[in-house]
């Protein structure tokens, strides 16, 4: 882990010093030991702030979109799942390859922050997280807690397809074993959901969608959502938006429509990075929606997980005479 961080800092400093890139987007230590924060380093000195570890859940690829209309060259740090998002943006011509340096990091799985914090006894403060190679040690002011590394990973990591980046100009470390586990089928929960009868599905999602704040955090974190102006902001012209509450009315049907439309819009784009679900402030199981799309696209169109390469075409961007067709 240490060498990966050193390699990363050295490469970032080199790129910045030689003016090869204007900015390196990576991770830096966060406000507490169980958090990292996105870091935008623009000088070789700032490159020393960069870090990497099992608490770097953010998919930084989304930030590229903020710079897509400029002409500067950027570098971005990516894990395996994030790298699929790079491929998707390149494929959609959202960011030119010549302006991008991809710094890949080997990922052994990302920790689920909430589960770690729930391990810490009340009153104790987390001071550091140590990686002993085999175990992770939570260092608190009331003592040390040790647990196996793969105990508190994020759900997506147990189903990881590519823990090494699928696209990278620079790799900060040797490949590490994938955190994927036996018995974590990609579609298990989706299958379970499909098996319910329609009334139960309806009440399950009503319950989830009724909590939605329509804060659009899910959309804002999503690398598949690359539109400059989102359809959900077009319902009312921009200049009227603040004045008309109706445009963002939070009724259950409106929320359901929001999620159905988002579901359809990420078809063939969603790389299953899980960012939407991680950032949702009310904990709606959003991946359960988008994994259904992944599953159906696989069954109907033989489409693999988007972003595995820049060669495969998204199922909704291509017509094949043998596409399944129900409405003709």
């Amino acid at each position: 882990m240490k060498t990966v961080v050193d390699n990363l800092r050295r490469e970032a400093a080199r790129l910045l010093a030689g003016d090869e890139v204007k900015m390196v987007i990576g991770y830096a230590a966060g406000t507490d030991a169980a958090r990292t924060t996105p870091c935008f380093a623009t000088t070789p000195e700032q490159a020393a702030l960069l870090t990497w570890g099992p608490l770097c859940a953010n998919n930084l690829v989304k930030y590229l979109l903020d710079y897509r209309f400029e002409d500067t060259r950027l570098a971005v740090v990516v894990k395996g799942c994030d790298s699929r998002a790079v491929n998707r943006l390149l494929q959609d011509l959202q960011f030119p390859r010549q302006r991008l340096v991809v710094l890949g990091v080997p990922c052994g799985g990302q920790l689920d922050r909430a589960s770690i914090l729930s391990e810490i006894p009340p009153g104790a403060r987390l001071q550091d997280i140590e990686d002993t190679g085999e175990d992770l040690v939570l260092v608190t002011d009331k003592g040390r807690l040790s647990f196996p590394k793969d105990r508190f990973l994020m759900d997506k990591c147990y189903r990881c397809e590519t823990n090494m980046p699928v696209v990278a100009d620079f790799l900060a470390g040797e490949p590490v074993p994938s955190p994927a586990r036996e018995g974590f089928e990609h579609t298990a929960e989706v299958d379970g959901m499909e098996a319910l009868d329609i009334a139960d599905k309806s009440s399950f999602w009503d319950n989830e969608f009724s909590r939605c704040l329509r804060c659009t955090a899910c959309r804002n974190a999503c690398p598949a959502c690359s539109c400059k102006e989102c359809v959900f902001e077009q319902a009312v012209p921009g200049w009227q938006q603040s004045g008309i509450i109706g445009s963002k009315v939070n009724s259950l049907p409106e929320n359901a429509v929001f999620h159905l439309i988002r579901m359809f819009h990420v078809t063939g784009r969603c790389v299953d990075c899980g960012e939407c679900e991680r950032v949702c402030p009310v904990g709606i199981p959003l991946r359960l929606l988008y994994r259904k799309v992944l599953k159906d696209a696989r069954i109907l169109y033989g489409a693999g997980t988007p972003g595995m390469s820049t060669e495969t075409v998204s199922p909704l961007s291509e017509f094949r005479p043998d596409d399944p067709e129900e409405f003709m």
Partner: protein
Amino acid sequence: MLFKQMMEYVGLEPDRLQIRWISGSEGAKVAEVTREMTERIRALGPNTKMRDVK
């Protein structure tokens, strides 16, 4: 087709979605398809799930 399966997944009757490709010269077909669709929707009853509470 994909969208229909999504509707079903979140608990909407998938039969509410119908798509037909009809050319401008097929007036009779428009009438026929519309009639058929109306029947189908009538059988399903009103879409209470998506009704706005205002």
